[in-house]
């Protein structure tokens, strides 16, 4: 049996039905419990988010697709003034957790940010309770920069990677991940309006 082929799609290019599904995916307890803002997103808040998204100064949302099936969501914020990009991602179906989709999304995000957007820093902020994701970032070459405390009392770890650090890591990761899952037909739309 052949391995799956995956595609990346900008949420804005998807049908309205898919855009609305984003709220359901995001509100699943296993997803929102790992988010910086873990409260449920209301219908009106999601509608406002969708209206703002096409004009958002930094935010782009992409989907990892297998055929017509969305498997993962990637949020990218490209800060042009600091030449940096912050990212986050989640898998849509709970049973898909830990099976490599997160690593695949992290790989394509880093390639996009560093090779196409040419940013000088890619960073992420992760709840310190989310140890597996923090470990995953480390294996991609991210360095820990420090912690911040949220109003909730939860701790966030900021991790960052430079283009040079990524160049040192990417070949080994590429061999592994592309063997698992070729990613074809990537439709990145650069951040910012």
């Amino acid at each position, binding site marked *: 049996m052949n391995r799956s082929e995956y595609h990346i799609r900008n949420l804005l290019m998807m049908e309205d039905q898919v855009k609305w599904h984003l709220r359901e995916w995001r509100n699943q307890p296993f997803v929102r419990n790992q988010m910086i803002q873990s409260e449920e997103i209301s219908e009106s808040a999601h509608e406002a988010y969708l209206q703002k998204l096409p004009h958002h100064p930094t935010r782009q949302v992409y989907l990892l697709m297998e055929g017509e099936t969305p498997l993962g969501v990637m949020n990218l914020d490209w800060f042009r003034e600091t030449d940096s990009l912050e990212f986050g991602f989640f898998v849509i179906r709970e049973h898909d*957790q*830990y099976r*490599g989709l997160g690593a695949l999304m992290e790989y394509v995000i880093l390639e996009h940010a560093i090779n196409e957007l040419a940013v000088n820093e890619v960073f992420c902020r992760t709840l310190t309770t989310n140890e597996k994701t923090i470990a*995953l970032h480390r*294996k991609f070459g991210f360095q820990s920069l420090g912690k911040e405390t949220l109003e909730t009392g939860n701790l966030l770890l900021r991790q960052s990677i430079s283009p040079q650090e990524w160049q040192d890591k990417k070949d080994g990761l590429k061999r*592994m991940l592309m063997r698992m899952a070729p990613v074809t037909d990537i439709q990145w739309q650069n951040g910012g309006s």
Partner: protein
Amino acid sequence: MKQIEQGALNQLVWEGLEELNDTLEDDQKLTLSQDMALFGKEGVLDSLDFVNLVMILEDLVHDKYGESITLMDEKAFSQKHNPFHKIDALSMYIKTLLAGDGQ
């Protein structure tokens, strides 16, 4: 297709885990045991470890038995009992694939 003893495949999975451990930094190494949870919320593997282990095991199967198997496809994740959860289940899944019953 090949019929391989379960014990031999348990040993193969164990070798795969040891090989995976060799790739990890000291503070990331896994504490191995026969009944450890590999996959899922309670599992020891993160997303990248999992991919790495799958690749290692596919290579080991090919090297030892001359068979090419694909451990990670949708069928594996659609099974009621995830075959990646424990060493025993994973070796049983490999046995099924080698016997030609799973693909």
